């Protein structure tokens, strides 16, 4: 049946392609504007990108013990096929972001065995090959440093930190860092730094844990049909997290994909008395709240430069700014 259907549809395609009114008209097609299919073996690269894992989620209460469960999942050693499947979107996303003109999803197909089937223009094939060559030949590491800063809008404006911007040269970055060093009023929250292999997903988080009782339930247990109170304990993690992947590109460029989080517990934490059971026994629970700002971004930077990301807080006295710097370093 497969053969029959294949023949049926192939015939339809043949008729369509030989219809004189459709495609037989002579066209002035040059080799530079005609797409061609090329197959690239990228299985080594997809494996080298390493395992993927969920980014830490700050500011949302989780049942006690969840962190242990996730690290157990991380310990599982993924197979080569799993790595290729997990990392295929990474390579497709990278190429899609840097090929001009923009490519449709079906133009870049990655098979489960790690073959990239690309239906592209010659110039796009050249870029694809250059990107793949750079990813393969790069044997250094990428260092990403972040600074979480906070201050009133007016102060940030005077430091030219009031708008999200790319620092396109190392000189512009050095000038900004000089201004920051001289400013004593700005609150420096944290400055996590990561040095990672190219293409590897990396994550660092510096967190505070607030463990609290969020509910009680009464359990009737033997002997004596006792009514025992069982607490529902949760953990609220706040702090700073950086989750990123850096990919070197030709020309000293870095494609940086990252998620930054800054989360804080709102103090004081309110409490509440609740009644449980037929007798109405009273218990106290905590009702904590956490405010989190999350930046999900992808940037293209020259090595040794950076980007300034400005939060969108509704409070002008408490604006969050994150400075992200990236550079290539030798192993």
């Amino acid at each position, binding site marked *: 049946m*497969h053969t*029959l*259907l*294949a*023949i*049926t*549809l*192939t*015939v339809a*395609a043949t008729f369509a*392609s*030989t219809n004189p009114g459709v*495609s037989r008209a*002579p*066209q002035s*097609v040059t080799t*530079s504007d005609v*797409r*061609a*299919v*090329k197959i690239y073996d990228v299985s080594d690269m997809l494996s080298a990108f390493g395992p993927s894992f969920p980014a830490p989620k700050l500011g*949302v*209460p989780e049942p006690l013990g969840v962190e242990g469960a996730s690290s157990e999942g991380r310990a599982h050693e993924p197979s080569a096929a799993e790595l290729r499947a997990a990392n295929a979107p990474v390579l497709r996303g990278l190429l899609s*972001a*840097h090929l001009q*003109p923009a490519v449709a999803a*079906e133009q870049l*197909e990655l*098979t489960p*065995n790690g073959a990239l*089937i690309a*239906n592209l*223009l010659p*110039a796009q094939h050249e*870029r694809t090959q250059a*990107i793949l060559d750079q990813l393969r030949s790069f044997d250094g590491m990428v260092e990403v440093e972040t600074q979480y800063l906070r201050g009133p809008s007016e102060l940030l404006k005077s430091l030219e930190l009031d708008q*999200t911007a*790319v620092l396109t040269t190392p000189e512009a970055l050095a000038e900004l860092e000089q201004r920051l060093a001289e400013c004593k009023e700005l609150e420096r929250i944290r400055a996590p730094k990561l040095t990672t292999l190219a293409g590897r997903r990396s994550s660092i988080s510096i967190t505070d844990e607030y463990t609290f009782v*969020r*509910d009680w339930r009464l359990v009737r247990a033997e002997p004596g049909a006792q009514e025992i109170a069982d607490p*529902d304990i949760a953990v609220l993690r706040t702090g700073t997290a950086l989750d990123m992947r850096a990919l070197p590109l*030709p020309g000293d*460029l870095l494609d940086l994909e990252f998620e930054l989080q800054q989360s804080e517990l709102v103090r004081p934490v309110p409490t*509440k008395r609740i009644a449980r059971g037929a007798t109405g026994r009273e218990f106290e629970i905590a*009702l904590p*709240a*956490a*405010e*989190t*700002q*999350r*930046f*999900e971004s992808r*940037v*293209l930077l*020259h090595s040794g*430069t950076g980007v300034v*990301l400005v*939060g*969108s807080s509704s409070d002008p006295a408490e604006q969050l700014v994150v400075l992200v710097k990236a550079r290539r370093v030798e192993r």
Partner: protein
Amino acid sequence: MNRRKDFWERVDEAWDARRDPLEDAALQRLISEDPGLLDELRRVERGLRELRAPQARRSGWARLMIAAVAAGLALAWIWSTRRDGDGSRDAGSTSPHTQRDAAALASESHELDATPRILALRIVNTLADARGVTEVELASGVRSTRFVASTAPASTLEPRLLYALASVVPTGN
């Protein structure tokens, strides 16, 4: 002609073995030699997908009709491909995979666009409290707010009514 025949035979073998034809090294080589085959394969696969769902609902009589039509088309295909083999293909025709891309004419540069820039940015502010999680998202100049879900057991909610709210407000940024 032999290449096409060889290609479809191998595709058929792969399908019969429940394998992805593109995993076959020989098929990959044939596609790289004649990229038009990939488009043909894609068309067939697309057609198969479209046929698969309605196929299950069709009566046996309808299946017979499809088979008869397919057989007729198969004969036509053999006739058509023989013509190709006789060298009667129009020299002016282009391979099915060739597509003129107007945008490509404007893009003469083969170099990577090296302008440092932000390719994507999404900022999300979250407030998680006893009532649930409220997210305010700022992306592409649009601020959207949504009440996601409760993080606490229902018994501790204040108020106890669970609700969902969404709003989208252009910020003009």
